[in-house]
């Protein structure tokens, strides 16, 4: 090696070294502002949910437990440990009461030729709440609609808020339904050539799959006034090959895991960790 080529290599190495130090990879935390300003609240009550779909998971109880533990560890709000409200029953009772009240129709005298209005017959509802629950399961979103009115009942939520020193109240609906589908899906296949080299090939195969759909609607209520502050709905689904047996509860948690960051993002600033490249 001549002196000239050695110098050339040295200068190349120097150039490379100086070039390499022109960028610096740094970790950053990007803050995502909370959707709701909850600075007025120090406490949060996860009251309960109107749940429906499959009977394999008590979506009301599981959701309350999960959200409480997440809020406890990831926000500054104090989580109130209270009995989970049987919201389906309460909303059902409320709906029955509303149906029993006479409809607000115009007075008979105001409509020419009309007969006096007769109030709607009150349902003969002397059953126990447990029986009522069994007879009116929530199986679809349509079933949920009749209970939806409870979220607009400011007096009910205000009264509940007074019991717990006016916290932020979180409630809503949870539909967790089994789902089945069949169709073509992309699958990766391992192929070995004559030399034994492994290759991954993608192909489309017809498959029957089953799984679950999770559709929660979170309603955030001001415990001081009973007014709804914010509500948001989500839809997530998961499918497995039909031969695979996955417990409903495992699927529920898998789907909730996907939603939790969005739920928390409504109440507190979340930080997304990543890296960026600083340049000279």
């Amino acid at each position, binding site marked *: 090696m001549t002196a000239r080529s050695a110098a050339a290599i040295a200068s190349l190495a120097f150039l490379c070294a100086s070039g390499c130090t022109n*960028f*610096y990879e*740094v970790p*950053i*935390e*990007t*803050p*995502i*502002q909370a*959707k709701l300003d909850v600075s007025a609240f120090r406490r949060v009550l996860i009251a309960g949910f109107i749940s429906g779909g499959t009977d394999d998971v008590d979506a009301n109880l599981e959701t309350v437990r999960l959200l409480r533990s997440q809020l406890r560890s990831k926000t500054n709000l104090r989580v109130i440990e209270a009995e989970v409200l049987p919201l389906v029953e309460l909303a059902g009772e409320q709906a029955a009461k509303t149906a029993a009240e006479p409809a607000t129709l115009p007075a008979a005298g105001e409509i020419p030729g009309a007969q006096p209005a007769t109030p709607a017959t009150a349902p003969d509802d002397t059953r126990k709440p447990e029986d009522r629950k069994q007879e009116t399961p929530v199986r679809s979103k349509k079933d949920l609609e009749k209970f939806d009115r409870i979220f607009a009942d400011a007096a009910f939520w205000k009264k509940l808020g007074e019991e717990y020193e006016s916290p932020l109240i979180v409630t809503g609906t949870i539909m967790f339904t089994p789902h089945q589908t069949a169709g073509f899906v992309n699958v990766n296949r391992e192929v070995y050539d004559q030399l034994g080299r492994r290759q991954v090939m993608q192909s489309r195969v017809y498959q029957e799959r089953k799984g679950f759909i999770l559709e929660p609607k979170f309603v955030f209520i001001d415990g001081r006034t009973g007014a709804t502050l914010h509500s*948001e*709905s989500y839809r997530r689904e998961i499918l497995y090959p039909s031969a695979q047996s996955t417990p409903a509860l495992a699927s529920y948690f898998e789907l909730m895991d996907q939603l939790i960051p*969005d739920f928390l*993002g409504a109440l507190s*600033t979340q930080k*997304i960790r*990543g890296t*960026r*490249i*600083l*340049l*000279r």
Partner: protein
Amino acid sequence: MYFSASVVLAALLAFPLPALADARSDAKAQVEFGIKVAQNGLWKEATYRWEKAVQLDSTYAEAWNNLAIGYEHQGRFDEAEKAYQNALKLDPKNVSIRQNYDLFKEINDRTKRRRDR
């Protein structure tokens, strides 16, 4: 005539205007200081330095890139977007700036979708 013109051009290329060179070297000093403090977690100070750098030399793509990252770290997304766009306009082929911008855009779009929901 051609000879004298080419001599002037060569002189200009060889010795850039001192004012421009000063602006870039001052900006570079700010950028380097900003990088040092950012590596120590002092992002506000770093952002201030990079703001100064782009004031001194608004054609400094790397300074705009760093400024965008500084804004991103503070959750100032609109300003970060503008800074990234300036950086890309000045140096569209810079892979690092493009990569930073793509990562930022993913978060920014997600945030906007959440807000609109």
